[in-house]
């Protein structure tokens, strides 16, 4: 009797999977902290699924009107949708419901944040290059699917904030030329608000089944592609080459590390869910289409879109009395579309511009590719400035800086700052490279000098003279 050998024999005799398992156990992980960012996203996703299952047991996807009577006194006697009431109940009446709900919300925010930082790591180290372009594309799809999934999630709640978000989403969708109107009627089932009677149910099944399934599938393909071509690695020593990977095996080395990370991620998310309030939906009140609050802000990952909608000057493409392209199209559709396209085509654009179509298993340090790094920083700053303007109304409240003044500053800054950063960062990378070369020469010289000293010493004191 062996507690390991027997189950393994059982499984292998029935699946012939032992060689695969044996190989997978010794799959190598290059040891670098930045390679864990993707894992943080993965573990946030697991927490999202776990908490989401709990929430689904208590959530009601109906917009039927009901009157609230419950422990939260300020809303007592108020008419609201069954959906909103069920979320207020999850927050106040279901034991531990608030913890699960807030943890779910925090996990969504951390999920997207980890993906964005992971994306930056992959970009600035050139890890997207051949043979990993497909992994990069899948990753981008994951990010944009996650944005939509998060948006659906907080739209479901049917509080005032979520309703305003849906109205804007509807407005952005309507702005798509030609097909916008029919498409939104199709999705919402009727003009929104109020939308068709089945709309909430459709949104719910999309949030709890269709999108999670899509995300899980994409994550699976992403991981399989990584395993197929292995991780990239940094050139930490002469042994790290394009042909040989050096790392810690999945088992036993990497397993406790990765599991520890999973538990830490979950711990932080549950601590946040317990100790740090997020989206207190009972304060926003139920959604009514004729109400809107000032100072409303979406979840952070949609900030770049609200910023773009606010920053865009009043400009519609019109012919006589016909609108062809209304304003929300620029900030709500074109802007994220451009960002996605630039990122998605980047591996091929870079390969064409540099003429470098070789396989790259060694990751660059950002300074190793000055132009790519400079472009990345400039592009990110462009997005970040637009993102920051989304908070202009908050900046006004906090520091009293006029909204109008900020508008013009930002409209200029988004076109001036990125080029400056581009040239500045490229210069910096080149200086760092030059510094590296000097360092190399110095080390080489020191080595030689040391060698010389040693040979002198070996020869003995007498002979040198």
């Amino acid at each position: 009797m062996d507690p390991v050998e027997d189950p393994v024999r059982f499984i292998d005799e029935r699946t012939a999977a032992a060689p695969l398992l044996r190989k997978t156990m010794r799959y190598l992980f290059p040891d670098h902290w930045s390679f864990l960012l993707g894992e943080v996203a993965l573990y946030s996703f697991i927490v999202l699924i776990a908490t989401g299952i709990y929430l689904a047991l208590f959530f009601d996807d109906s917009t039927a009107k009901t009157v609230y009577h419950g422990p939260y006194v300020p809303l007592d006697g108020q008419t609201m949708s069954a959906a909103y009431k069920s979320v207020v109940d999850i927050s106040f009446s279901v034991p531990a419901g608030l913890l699960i709900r807030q943890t779910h919300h925090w996990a969504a925010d951390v999920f997207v944040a980890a993906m964005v930082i992971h994306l930056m790591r992959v970009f600035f180290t050139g890890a997207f290059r051949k043979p990993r372009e497909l992994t990069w594309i899948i990753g981008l799809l994951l990010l944009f699917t996650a944005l939509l999934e998060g948006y659906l999630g907080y739209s479901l709640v049917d509080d005032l904030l979520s309703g305003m978000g849906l109205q804007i989403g509807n407005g952005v969708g309507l702005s798509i030329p030609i097909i916008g109107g029919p498409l939104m009627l199709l999705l919402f089932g009727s003009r929104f608000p109020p939308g068709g009677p089945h709309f909430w149910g459709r949104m719910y099944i999309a949030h709890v089944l269709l999108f999670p399934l899509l995300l899980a599938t994409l994550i699976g393909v992403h991981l399989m592609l990584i395993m197929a071509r292995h991780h990239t690695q940094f050139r930490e020593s002469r042994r790290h080459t394009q042909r040989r990977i050096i790392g810690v095996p999945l088992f036993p080395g990497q397993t406790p590390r990765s599991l520890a990370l999973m538990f830490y991620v979950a711990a932080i998310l549950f601590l946040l869910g317990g100790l740090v309030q997020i989206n207190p939906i009972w304060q926003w009140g139920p959604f009514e289409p004729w109400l809107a609050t000032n100072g409303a802000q979406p979840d952070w990952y949609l900030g770049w879109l609200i910023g773009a909608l606010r920053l865009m000057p009043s400009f519609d493409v019109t012919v006589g009395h016909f609108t062809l392209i209304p304003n929300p199209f620029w900030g709500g559709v074109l802007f994220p579309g451009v960002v996605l396209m630039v990122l998605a085509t980047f591996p091929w654009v870079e390969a064409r511009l540099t003429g470098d179509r070789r396989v790259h298993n060694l990751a660059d340090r950002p300074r190793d590719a000055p132009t790519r790094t400079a472009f990345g920083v400039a592009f990110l700053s462009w997005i970040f400035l637009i993102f920051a303007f989304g908070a202009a109304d908050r900046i006004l409240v906090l520091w009293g800086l006029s909204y109008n003044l900020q508008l013009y500053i930002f409209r200029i800054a988004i076109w001036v700052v990125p080029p400056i950063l581009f040239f500045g960062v490229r210069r910096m990378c080149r200086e760092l490279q030059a510094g590296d070369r000097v360092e190399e020469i110095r080390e080489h010289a020191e080595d030689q000098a040391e060698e010389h000293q040693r040979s002198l010493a070996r020869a003995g004191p007498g002979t040198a003279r």
Partner: protein
Amino acid sequence: MKIWKWIVTLLTLLFGRLMRRGGSVEDAEERIVPAGTPERRAENLVLVLLMLAVLAGIAFIVVYAIYPHADQPNELLGLCLGLCLALIGGALTVVAKRLVVTEELEDDYPDVHPQAQREIAEIVHESGSRITRKKLLIGAGAAAGGTLGLAALTPALSLGPLWDTAPLDMTPWRPGVALVDENGNKMPASDVVGGTFYSAFAEGVDPEDIASELVVIRLDPDKLKLPNGRADWAPDGILAYSKICTHAGCAIGLYRNPLFPDLEPKPALVCPCHYSTFDPYTGASVIYGPAGRPLPQLPLMIDGAGYLRANGNFSARVGPAWWNVREKPTYGTNE
């Protein structure tokens, strides 16, 4: 404290015994995973951390059980569960850093397989050697597959109207329809005062219908500069505009009403989502922000009993802009 030491010692003994039993067999052969020196203190630390995690987990269950349903201490629950998870994470970190054999191995990056690539192409090519009109057959197959795909997608059109965009145009307003407030009560013109704004709806219509929702204000009739043909749209200076912003569809939630008009900007209707700002004196023309067209205005009249009623339909289509939007609205409700 003493009991603690006992528990730890007991567990250490137990686990140590078990581990040794498993390890003795393979020493003779060549090992795959290199041997390392035992670290009893690290094992003890792992045990302590795991026991603390057990305590935190128990604490969570206890907190859940002893507090009443409607008064659960969210902070305490989160703290217990978070600590439990963090302690397990800590135990795993000790395992990773001090107990598991640390190896740094080398492996080849996977190669490409030109031979297999060639053979796949060869198999596919040779498999079709009996077929003479390949392109035609592939085209026919693609047509059949594409049509099947289209047919399979067609039922999705049942989700909503397709090219019939009439629902986007409908409004419940026509001459004589009364304005009501949030509670469904008719609005006397005399109740509408300057300096604030009111929400109003079409009588007998779902208040959530965006074409029903109005913002009503009263301004000095002498200062109005409404577009041509709207001279009698604002009886006694009472104006009604669609409450839905023409930019992205949020409600016009703000009414800027300067307390000191000499210095402050003039009155305006503002959408708080992207700060589109409309001038109520000039037919809600856009004076700031991203909106591309004015708020649609509804002509008003005051009936014999002094209540506000519509005297026609909106000046333009309501709601966020979309392809074609500047046409006149059509009558009829979408109920």
